[in-house]
Every structure is written in C-alpha cells, then in structure tokens.
C-alpha cells in the first residue's frame, strides 16, 4: 500500500533557529501515528507543517501520493483538532461543526445529514444550539472532534487534544478516540507529551527530542527495545531503571557487575549478551525485576539487595533499592514481603535487558 503520509528530509527553521532536523516518517492508511516528546521539541511545529499552516524550510511532504509543498491547508484533505479546541466563540455548536461545509458550499441537506450523523456519533445532540462558552471542557473537546469528523478527511491531525481535560475524563476520551479510530479505520497523526497516551493509542510511535527523531516503531518496539537512553527514560512509567555497570566477557557469557550499597558488587551473568564495552548502562523495566520466591524462570537471576522504600500502589507495590549509585524500582505484587531497611531477594529478568553506551546513550544490543 502506498503511504498516506510521507515526510522526507523535512527541515523547519524560524529565522536562524532550526526547529526540525531531517524528519523522515511514513504512515500507511489506517495507521495511528503518535508524535511524542518533551515540551518544545517541535511536535506542534511538525503537525503544523503537515497541515500547511507553517511553510517548510526543506524536504517534502506527500499526502495520499500528492506533493503538498504548494498546496494550501484547505486543499490538503486533512482535519485538525487543536489543543485549545479553537471553537468559533460566536457560533453555536451546530454552526461550528458545519462552518467548513458552508465555506465549501456544500448543500444544506448534506450539511444537515452530516451534522446529525456526527452529533449522534459523539453524543452531542443536546448541545447543538449552545455556544462554546456554555460547554464544559469535555464537551468542547467533543465538538472539536465533531468539526474534524464531518470533513471525512484522508488524514486526521490531533494536537494534544486531551491535555486540557482532568485525569478521569482524559482516560475516557482516550478510549473513545481509540474506538473512533477502530470504527473509522482512518489515518491519524496525534501529538502528545503523555507517554501513556502514546502507548495506548498508537500503532506507530515517533519519539522526538530537540527536533530530531529518536526512534520510530510500534509501541512494543519502543517499550521493549528503546533505541537510546533518552527513549528508554522517556517512555514507560515508572521509568526504566538505568543502572551503571561493568561488563566482562567470560566463558559462559558476559558478567555484569553492579555496585551495591554497603556490600559486595552484584554480579549477574547474561549468556546472550553481544560484545559489550567495559562500561555500560544496563536498562531494566521495573516489571522485569521481581521478588525471587514469587517469580523465577530461566532468564531470571537472583540477588539480594537492601530495600530502601516500599510504595504500595493498589494492584502493584513498588519496591525501591539502590544499585550502581542509582535508585532502582521494582514492580512487585501487592502481597510482597518487602520491608524498608531489610534485604530482599530480587529476581532480575535478563531476557528483557537493554544495554546502552554511557558516552552517547546508543543501544548496544
């Protein structure tokens, strides 16, 4: 299948300031692409470039096989939902939704039919005669979605559409957007700086930092095999444990030596590790560290560590220790026997381990 959106060697500068550097992304029809990254990394700028709201400095953007360089936003066959919703303040909800069709000269009957369909889909029929000022945040969000949905575009663009909602509503709307994507089968580009939103919604994630793409991949790839330290640290909550370690090749595999507070260094053996430099950073997700007697398997290696803090969080309990001079979090069962200040047998799942180079943060395995 031809990609619905294809971005090649895109550069964008404001004056002398380079905001986006050599962006290359393509998505297939039906993909849900999530752009994620810290504040100010250029996510909105990239979205605005795709929409044609900002001129690009270099490279090319293709939508549905057509080069977009000279095409104005209204002719790009896109719809966009903004962070502030950007509803027209003096128009009723119905007028907000139909404004685009009116401008394009769509006949009244079609407008009414589309409005009805979208209003039913988003359950906003009772609100159609209200002004945006008379709506709650969640309702405004729906109206903004409605305005995008009536366009039936080749590509939906969302700029942090949920960031103004409270936590509960955000989770609800997240599910609704996911459902919407599944029923419509539409192609979407979605900006967020919430990595949980990214993981739950995306079929493909782009992680950005400082205007440069760090990694492109499915949520599982990004989560399990982060391309560098930045991605490893940014995606996942609580964050991946990144522990400084020394690696030494030995007969059976590679010995990984980690400094342990108030005791001998911890030594783990990874039989499948590639050739590693002497200094590495070992990355292990909290759920890959368990209590030894609860979970054991082939790839698990057991070692005693001193527990610093125990944080019950309902279903799980987070157990904090200190390894290699860094705090380390393990996600354990609610019934864990861990006690602060006492040693506990930890099981490390080296089957899921990532190794990074300390100098430049790149992935080593």
């Amino acid at each position: 299948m031809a990609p619905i959106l294809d971005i090649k060697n895109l550069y964008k500068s404001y004056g002398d300031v380079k905001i986006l550097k050599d962006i290359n992304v393509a998505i297939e029809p039906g993909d849900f692409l999530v752009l994620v990254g810290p504040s100010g990394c250029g996510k909105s700028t990239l979205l605005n470039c795709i929409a044609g709201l900002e001129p690009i400095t270099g490279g090319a953007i293709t939508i549905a096989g057509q080069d977009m360089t000279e095409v104005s936003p209204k002719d790009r066959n896109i719809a966009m939902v903004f962070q502030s919703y950007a509803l027209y303040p003096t128009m009723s909800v119905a007028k907000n939704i139909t404004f685009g069709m009116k401008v394009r000269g769509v006949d009244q009957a079609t407008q009414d039919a589309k409005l009805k369909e979208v209003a039913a889909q988003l359950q906003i029929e009772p609100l159609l005669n209200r002004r945006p000022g008379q709506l709650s945040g969640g309702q405004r969000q729906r109206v903004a979605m409605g305005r995008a949905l009536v366009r039936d575009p080749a590509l939906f663009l969302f700029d942090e559409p949920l960031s103004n909602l409270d936590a509960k509503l955000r989770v609800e709307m997240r599910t609704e957007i996911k459902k919407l994507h599944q029923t419509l089968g539409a192609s979407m580009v979605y900006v967020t700086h919430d990595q949980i939103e990214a993981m739950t919604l995306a079929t493909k994630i782009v992680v950005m930092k400082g205007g440069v793409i760090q990694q492109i991949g499915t949520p599982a790839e990004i989560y399990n095999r982060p391309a560098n330290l930045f991605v490893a640290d940014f995606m996942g909550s609580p964050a991946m444990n990144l522990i400084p370690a020394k690696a030494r090749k030995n007969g059976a595999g590679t010995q990984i030596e980690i400094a342990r507070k108030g005791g001998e260094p911890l030594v783990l053996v990874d039989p499948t590790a590639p050739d590693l430099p002497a200094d590495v950073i070992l990355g292990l997700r909290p759920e890959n560290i368990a209590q030894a007697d609860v979970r054991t398997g082939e790839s698990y290696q057991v070692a005693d560590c001193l527990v610093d803090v125990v944080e019950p969080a309902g279903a799980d309990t987070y157990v904090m220790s200190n390894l290699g001079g860094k705090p380390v979090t393990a996600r354990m069962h609610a019934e864990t026997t861990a006690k602060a200040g006492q040693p506990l047998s930890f099981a490390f799942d080296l089957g899921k381990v990532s190794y990074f180079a300390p100098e430049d943060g790149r992935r080593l395995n």
Partner: protein
Amino acid sequence: MTDATLISPRAGTRTTGQKVTRLALRYGLYALLFLFALYYLLPLFVMVSTSLKSLDEIRTGSLVALPREVTFEAWKTAWSGACTGIQCEGLKPYLWNSLLIAIPGVAISTIIGALNGYVFAQWRFRGANLMFALILFGCFIPFQVVLLPMARMLGLMGLAGSIPGLIFVHVVYGLGFTTLFFRNYYVTIPMELVRAAKIDGAGFFRIFWSIFLPISLPIIVVSVIWQFTQIWNDFLFGVSFSEAGTQPVTVALNNIVNSTTGVKAYNVDMAAAILAALPTLLVYVVAGKYFIRGLTAGSVKG
C-alpha cells in the same frame, strides 16, 4: 435571625457601632461626590440658563440666577439666524457639514482600522512590528506638524477645501488610533482560531467576517466613540482645510462668537455652543457604558 442573636448577642452590639461609622462614611462620600458633581455641572447650568434668557435679563440679572422669563429666541437664532461672518444662516448648515464629515470619517477609519488590527494581530508578516511602531508613532504627531504637507497633498488630489478632503484628513489621522484599538483587541484571540478556520477552508476576508467581526462589538463602540468625538470636536483641521460652504460646526461656532459686532449676544453664543456639543454628549450617554466595557474587554474564550 433569632438563631444569630442567640448564638452571639455581643457580636450584634458590636456591629451596631460599626454600622454607624460605615453609614457615616458612606453618606460623607455621597455628599462629597454630590459636591463634585455640582461643581462640574455648574458651567452647563449657566450655559443652559443663559441661553434661555433674553439679552435684557442677562444684562440686569445675575449669572447664576434662573431665567425669570424663559425664551427660546436665542436657540432659534443660533439654529438658523446667527451670523458667521457675512452669512446669517445660524449653525444648521454647519451641523450638517459636520455630520457629513464625521459619519463617513468614523465609518471608514473604523473599518480600515479593524482590518489593519486584524492583520497586525493575526497575520504576522515580515516587518510587521516595525510597521506597527510607525503607525503608533503616527498617533503622537502633533496636528500642527502635518498642516502644510496635508494642504499640499489635498491640493494635489484636488480635494482642497472640500468635505471629502476633510474626511480624508480625519481618516488618515484617526487610523493610528483605530488600528491600535483593534490590534490590541485581536491579539488576545488565540492564533489557533485562525488556523482552524484556514483548515475549514475560509480565506482572509471570510475569517474576518465570520469569526472576528462578530466578537468585535465592544471595540467597534470604542473606536466609533473615539473617532466621532475627535472628528466632531476638531477645530484646527476644520479651519485649515475648509472653505466658505464646507466649514464644520466648530469653526462656525467660533465665527458666531467672534464676528458679532456691538453687544455680545451671550444667550445665542451659549445656545450655539450647546448645539455644537450635543451630538458628542448624546454618543456618550447612549454608548458610554460600552466604551468602558470595550476598553477593558479581555480575551475571548473559545
């Protein structure tokens, strides 16, 4: 009521004391405000009462006394008989001139100011800041400085001494202010609104018409009041760029007051002055509260 007294009888007695002081303060304030109001209204009172007196009464009576015998003779003269030099047609034709100047002047400068403000606030272009600074600078150029160049310009355009010429002068001079008003109002509107409308397919004018104009009423009122007052009260441009048939009312008023020979007809002068000031007063009374509201109006929540 009874509950409150039961719970804290002493608090009740304390508040009576406070109440007395509060009332005293309040009425003291009212009295002061009343005095100030009187002070400011006194000239108006003198004008109105003088305009209703006959010349004889003015000569014999006191300045602040009420008219013994009310007569509208002076008003009639001021309206249609007073001499502004060799002609003796009263203020009527000049009031008409002023309207012919003020209405198009206000309308044109407000419309162009709104468009300018819209561009400066929402369609940033290279050099916009410099342009805006220059336009602002235009607000602070004294009238006297532009008299000669403007006279030359009007001559070149063939508008010298005409009402369109005066309209042009007022539009040019007012644009700085109207642009500033609208720009500052539109800056508070989030840029995403324009972006959303662009994606919806609307162009420059469509966005202005459908989205910006409907939220602009408060600032339009400000612009209209400001411009109307400026244009109506203007004397210098009026006296410099008009000729016999095109003088605005301020110039005519000056001529009436200064060209009487012999006995000064104070009653006619007063009536004429009130007539000349009436339209601006009216505008303030009708739209004054929108003026305050518009000046303080903030951002529009989408």
